[in-house]
């Protein structure tokens, strides 16, 4: 299983942002090409794609403020390990 973390968008140690949109739902198959989310910090948007393929589980809902680096979703291995 691999984590999808909120990308580092600021030099400030305590910077926080929100997931603006989840383009997928928990249980969907994703690949490194899948646009899974758009996140925002200080009016700057960034697209998020997973590092690996598998089934996604969303951890953080839209519009909930989280620190950068926080786990926002997980991706299980295709084999289910």
């Amino acid at each position: 299983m691999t984590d999808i973390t909120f990308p580092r968008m600021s030099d400030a140690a305590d910077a926080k942002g929100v997931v603006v949109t989840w383009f997928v739902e928990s249980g969907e198959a994703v690949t490194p090409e899948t646009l899974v989310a758009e996140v925002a910090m200080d009016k700057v948007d960034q697209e998020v794609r997973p590092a690996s393929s598998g089934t996604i589980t969303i951890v953080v809902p839209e519009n909930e403020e989280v620190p950068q680096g926080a786990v926002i979703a997980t991706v299980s291995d295709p084999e289910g390990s």
Partner: protein
Amino acid sequence: MTITAGPARTESPDVFHTPIPVEPDAGHRRLSTAKALQEAIAQQMRRSDEVLVLGEDVGAYGGIFSSTTGLLDEFGPERIRDTPISETAFIGLGIGAAVEGMRPIVELMFVDFFGVCMDQIYNHMAKIHFESGGRVTVPMVLMTATGGGYSDGAQHSQCLWGAFAHLPGMKVVVPSNPYDAKGLMTAAIRSDDPVLYMFHKGVMGLGWMKKNPRSIGAVPEEPYEVPIGRARVAREGSDLTIVTLGLSVHHALDVAERLAPEGIDVEVLDLRSIVPLDREAILASVSQTGRLLVVDEDYQSFGLSGEVIATVAEAGPSLLRHVSRVAVPDVPIPYAHGLEEAVLPSPARIEAAVREALA
């Protein structure tokens, strides 16, 4: 500033006249309306370097409502051109490029700014084809942001599509969702006619505005067209037809879903295009339901809502058991949020109108 006009490098000379899929199955991949619009432009730019983008802040900024995000990185400043704040100059530049064989997409940042450049738009972009006896075409897209709801004041919140639709020579399209945004932009770029592409800021799916979930939806990955001039039944119903467009489609669908448990069955017709207007779709729906409510975020008098009602009245007043409209009363859009909410076609006003129609 120079723009290279032909001979352009294209896949084939007839790349824009070769048929592509029309309204294919949406599939599963989901995008926001803004991203669907960006994808449509990028795909047509990859097909032909006749396509370019001009406008204020379309480059590094990506369009103030994210209509062009990411395009500068892929296509560079030659084809994604930030312009000075001179709408007459850069819309005229786009017209000239179109006449010489390019397919420019020119962004007018807010439709409200049309006052400073209207001569270029309606005396030149819209008329050159007519005045040349069809010898000169203007295959140009004029893209612009419309609509209110976020306290941006009377000069940054209007829809104004009725004003443009009134003037002959331009096609006018107004997408309400990601699927139509991509398909209509693709059709607009491929059209040999000038097309005014009016997106409502509230349907783009932007995080910093109120985001209706209907602004995110399934979008095919391949290029495809949504035909200009064809409306879509967004929700089938038997009691009353709401004819609407843009953000008001979201509100109308929300109201229809809220009233369904009470046994009120509302049909929602999303016009998608104003010019040409799909009068057949309006008549087909109203002849089934017998009741017509037009919801339009443009000013009420002398505009689209009256045209839709006239269409039905001319075809047969006996079709109508009820007719009414929810539009912006004939006042400028207020800055104060409470006042703005009062004049816009809000879900509360739409719901009240539906109840009154069926009382």
